[in-house]
């Protein structure tokens, strides 16, 4: 187990290097001069361009620039935002928890919906539960999240007036208010993941139920409840774990859209605003943070998988 974890950790090193390199290279991808792009046409006179070029180290060869960039990252320096004139790290730190909360509650929503629904659908195949679950899953997978978000805003916010549609509750607000602000964004962000996981849970529970060990257990006279929960589910949920890890990236990408729609003050909205203002250091910072978050989640899921499934450990 420890051996596996060490090996898995080692494989993330080249990935991390690759990520930082791509994020670093984003500046040089810009057509024409990145600097005049950042300054805008009015302020891009020769003196300003020269000053910013030196400030960003763009007069150095690319490998020295990369080394400088990496050195900065390791000391917690992601550069300064051009529009806000503040360290990118500070701006991300202020919003990081908000995105974490939104991602966590969306994940919770997706799991609470998809697991019971997928299991019930598999267990009562071709019943109304099964058809209902398939329909919901199809909706979740096919509805564009920005569209779902706006529909929910129109119905529950504007027409019925049940739920708040903008922003986050302040820290002094009661828990109830806090949760009410979370509902619409979390449902919107979690619905895609819920759809994918419902379909997957259903098919993998179905597959597990058709295995020999389930037939053996039933033949032995083990109760149905125990067959389902102890024998079938344990095996069925393994692929669900992996898929969850892989799909978490979709959730993070969706956060950029959902935070923008609901004015949720997180890293996703920061990224979208950075793109609107062409604030390249800020774009680099937010992209990097999202990638690191995703790498971390995949890492944890992989290690969890081995912890759950002893067969892999001995290979």
């Amino acid at each position: 187990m420890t051996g596996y974890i060490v090996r898995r950790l080692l494989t993330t090193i080249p990935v991390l290097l690759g990520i930082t390199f791509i994020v670093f290279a984003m500046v040089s991808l810009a057509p024409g001069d990145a600097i005049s792009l950042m300054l805008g046409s009015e302020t891009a006179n020769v003196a300003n361009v020269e000053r910013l070029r030196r400030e960003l180290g763009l007069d150095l060869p690319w490998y020295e620039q990369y080394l400088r960039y990496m050195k900065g990252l390791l000391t917690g320096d992601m550069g300064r935002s051009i529009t806000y004139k503040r360290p990118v790290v500070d701006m991300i730190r202020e919003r990081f928890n908000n995105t974490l909360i939104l991602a966590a509650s969306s994940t919770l929503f997706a799991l609470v919906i998809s697991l019971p629904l997928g299991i019930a659908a598999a267990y009562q195949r071709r019943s109304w539960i099964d058809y209902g679950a398939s329909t919901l899953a199809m909706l979740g997978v096919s509805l564009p999240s920005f569209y779902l978000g706006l529909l929910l805003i129109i119905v529950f916010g504007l027409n019925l007036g049940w739920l708040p549609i903008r922003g986050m509750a302040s820290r002094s607000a009661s828990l109830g208010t806090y949760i009410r602000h979370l509902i619409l964004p979390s449902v919107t962000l979690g619905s895609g993941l819920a759809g994918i996981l419902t379909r997957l849970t259903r098919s993998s529970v179905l597959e597990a139920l058709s295995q020999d060990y389930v037939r053996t257990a039933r033949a032995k006279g083990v109760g149905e409840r125990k067959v389902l929960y102890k024998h079938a589910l344990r095996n069925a949920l393994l692929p669900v774990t992996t898929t969850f890890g892989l799909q978490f990236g979709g959730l993070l990408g969706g956060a950029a859209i959902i935070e923008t729609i609901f004015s949720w003050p997180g890293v996703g909205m920061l990224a979208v605003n950075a793109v609107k203002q062409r604030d390249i250091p800020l774009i680099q910072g937010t992209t990097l943070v999202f990638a690191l978050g995703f790498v971390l989640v995949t890492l944890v899921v992989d290690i969890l998988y081995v912890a759950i499934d002893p067969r892999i450990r001995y290979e």
Partner: protein
Amino acid sequence: MSRDMSREEKTARSELAHLVKVFLRHRLGVVGLVMLSCFVLAAVFAPVVAPYDPLEMDLLNPFAPPGSPGHLLGTDNYGRDILSRLIHGSRISLLIGIVAVTIAAVLGSCLGLLAGYYGGWVDALVMRLVEVFYAFPFLILVIGVMAVLGPSIYNVMIVLGVVSWPLYARLVRAQVMALKSEDFVKAATAMGLSDARIMFRHILPNVLTPVIVSATLGIPGAILSSAALGFLGFGVQPPWPEWGAMVSEAKDFMLIDSNMIIWPGMCVFLVVLSFNFVGDAVRDALDPRLAKQLH
């Protein structure tokens, strides 16, 4: 020889007929195919089918409700006919979906072919690159690169394509590695054919089917992403009637008129839904054992 060919052809044809039969048994698959055909027809014949020019404004007649005379789905804030904009929008969305997926499939297949055929450091390099691309949340990387390149319909296609190649590289690489030990490849090598010839003439045709299938299944994803980009304002720009951009324009008038939001979003949803229905049916047709187990 010719008799063998015709027999082979016959089995191939009956196999295809069988696949079609299995597909047609899948009711939702047929529904999806019909819906999809409608969108494709609308896209191909857009200038003929659309009652108005999608960019033509009628400032005296904004926010007309659906069912108004001459405007089946009403008009938007500039009095432009919503139905005509949606019809022309299907052109943009389908085109982006198809081109983006083609770029991804061609790029990914070439890299996968090289990696699988040569192995060694080429393989290691390509696979590390695949891992790095997979480490980014897809949409975040797309937004970041779009930000640097600037919004335009061509950049949407290029960026969505370039960011999605790893899937195809993985797929092709695995197939090529399996095929490399087949007799026909060994024979080609023994005959002294060049690497390029072996790769593109002998191996590639054998891995094309799964690539085409997954590319087709990848189209709805590309359409969703391009709509999301359009919505955020980083994709196709107004006044072009891209569905995502239309939703984005409409959201400013949410309080006055929700009609403008409903239709373009519905179109994205219906196209993606019909692709998903068709995709499920195709998967069932190709893997009947699994289908029997799951349905």
